[in-house]
């Protein structure tokens, strides 16, 4: 189906266009989702450092200020924790803020407000108050961005009850999931990856939402399951194509939301393949991979034919030098090698 397909190469989307289907980049799908949200919900607003500037958060908010004004596309002071608290207070009073961080690395500055406040308010008030707050945050990569501009920190928040975590990979999903996030009215960490902004895909013009907690099979296969997140979905699809030529049939699952996680979909797949790789855009220890593998073992300790594998950033801070960067990031060939060692 066009809405489930991952297009690795830009010219592949020509097929869609030749069929009369609408094609947008991840970036523009995100912008369209925000514009539609702002139009439909008067209580929604965007806030973040530079949301209204010439860069427009890598183009994802570009021009929205002209359409919706400075109050609803709000540039803010550099006060991440305070502004998160203010967003929570506004959300508790009935607004629907989308707080945008140009890098996920700024989330630790808001840790108190996200963990102690956003995640707890609904529970602590006995359900009287809820916090419809979406926190868009973007994982950076490359060009020497180094240790404070390249982290994926979603694993830390996986531990916190009261927060949901969404990690879209395709243009279709980013639009549908952002709309779902706004409509869900819970505190939601919406984790994006800078390197998928230019990927293209089918995106309908109307508003639609994708159920939170529902993963998707990107590619059917019988030999091994790769659970891939965000940018790793594309890397895994590329690996799957290479491996197909060698007669290895890879199933790629994109959970799309990691909290809640579509455990059943992964379980069904691994029950079939008996082999599991979890590929994430974050460091290894204590991350999503550990949780996925643990959940599978809890369900059936005999599930695996070979020990499961995690493909992650190594447990080091991100370096700056291009040579060290190359050594740091797992690539398609890492995935291919891992798969070959397992089948």
């Amino acid at each position, binding site marked *: 189906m066009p809405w489930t397909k991952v297009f690795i190469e830009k010219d592949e989307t020509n097929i869609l266009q030749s069929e009369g289907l609408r094609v947008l980049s991840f970036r523009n799908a995100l912008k369209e989702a925000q514009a539609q949200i702002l139009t439909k919900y008067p209580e929604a607003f965007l806030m973040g450092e530079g949301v209204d500037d010439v860069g427009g958060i890598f183009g994802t908010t570009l021009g929205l200020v002209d359409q919706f004004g400075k109050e609803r596309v709000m540039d803010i002071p550099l006060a991440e924790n305070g502004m998160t608290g203010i967003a929570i207070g506004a959300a508790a009073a009935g607004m629907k803020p989308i707080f945008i961080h140009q890098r996920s690395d700024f989330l630790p500055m808001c840790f108190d407000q996200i963990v102690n406040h956003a995640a707890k308010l609904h529970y602590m*008030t*006995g359900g009287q108050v809820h916090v419809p707050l979406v926190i868009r945050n973007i994982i950076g990569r490359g060009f020497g961005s180094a240790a404070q501009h390249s982290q994926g920190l979603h694993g830390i928040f996986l531990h916190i009850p009261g927060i949901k975590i969404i990690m879209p990979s395709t243009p279709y999903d980013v639009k549908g999931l952002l709309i779902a996030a706004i409509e869900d009215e819970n505190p939601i960490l919406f984790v994006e990856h800078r390197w998928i902004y230019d990927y293209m895909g089918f995106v309908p013009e109307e508003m639609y939402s994708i159920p939170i907690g529902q993963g998707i099979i990107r590619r059917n296969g019988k030999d091994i399951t790769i659970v891939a997140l965000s940018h790793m979905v594309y890397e895994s699809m590329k690996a799957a194509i290479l491996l197909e030529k060698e007669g290895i049939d890879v199933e790629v699952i994109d959970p799309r939301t990691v909290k809640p996680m579509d455990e059943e979909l992964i379980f069904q797949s691994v029950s079939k393949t008996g082999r599991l790789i979890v590929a994430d855009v974050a460091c290894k220890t204590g991350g999503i991979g550990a949780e996925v593998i643990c959940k599978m073992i809890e369900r059936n300790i005999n599930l695996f034919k070979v020990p499961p594998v995690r493909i992650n950033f190594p447990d080091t801070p991100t370096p700056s030098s291009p040579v060290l960067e190359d050594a740091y990031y797992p690539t398609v060939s890492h995935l291919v090698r891992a798969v070959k060692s397992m089948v």
Partner: protein
Amino acid sequence: MGTEIPAGACKFYIESRVINPKEDDKVMGRRAKNLSDENLIDLYRTMIKIRLFEEKIIDVYSAQDMRTPVHLYIGQEAIAAGVCLHLGPKDYITTNHRSHGHCLAKGMDPKVLFAELYGKRTGCCRGKGGSMHPASVEHGILGTSAIVGGGIALAVGNALAANMRREKRVTVAFFGDGATEEGIFFECLNFASLKRLPVVFICENNLYATNSPITNRQPNSYLWTRGGIYDIEGYFIYDNDVLGICQKAREAINKARSGFGPSLLECRTYRWKGHVGPEEDHEKGARPKSELDLWKNRCPIKCFRNYLIYSRKIRASLLNEIENTMRHSIDEAWQIGKNEPYPDQDELYQNVYFQKTT
């Protein structure tokens, strides 16, 4: 009036002025000129309600069936009462771990609060908040943070929402002197002033954060000046001066409501009990007893009562009657709250996430 400084007392005690109700009659009279006898009696009733509510906690706490850490407000009642007198039900407040006084002054039912303290299903938060996290949407209390300074950001957010919806609601943030040391306090002052939000910051400077005197924590005690760098007007109100609080709070609230932005009021006060629990700090040697005795001498309720009787010619018997009626109703509220049913254990898993009712 000469004042002996108790050994070990907080330095700022020296600057404190001992209020003599009779000497201050003229000042008080001026401040009270906009307040009817009815307003003044309301004020008195609110202070009495807070005092008796918490004295009840002290009476029953040793039974250990009220299983929640209580941070008592006794000695500080003038602030919550004086500020909330000017607020309507739609106005928002945020409080902190020392929450009971603000909630009662804003109109929460003591029995619902008692039920919460006892962890009962009919408590304001169905037993999920306890003493440190009360909430009541109908009273404009949209959740309480016990992380110092957390409530300040919630308040500014409440005010932002009101502003964006062009509502005439005012938000009051109550917090202590310790919160003015947190970064979030300054982040919030900056934003509230930048957007001219309808918020009033009320700093209750009781001179101590747990056991740490403010002299160990800040180079000076002029907390009312802290908003100056952001063009926020600040005022200092002397020790438990309820009419001073009333007057300045009214001005600040009216200013906020009229769209002229935030104000910061530092109300100096003193908590009589320990940071947490019903004991007094001198029992453990945390503070000198003589310091407490001096502040008890300027008890906000006692001073105000004297003023009402001697200057406003309100009959003592009327005030006694208010106190007796309140005592009866607090006892009754306690009985009801205590005897409510506990929540079912499966409620543990409810309210982690908001679920839309379709």
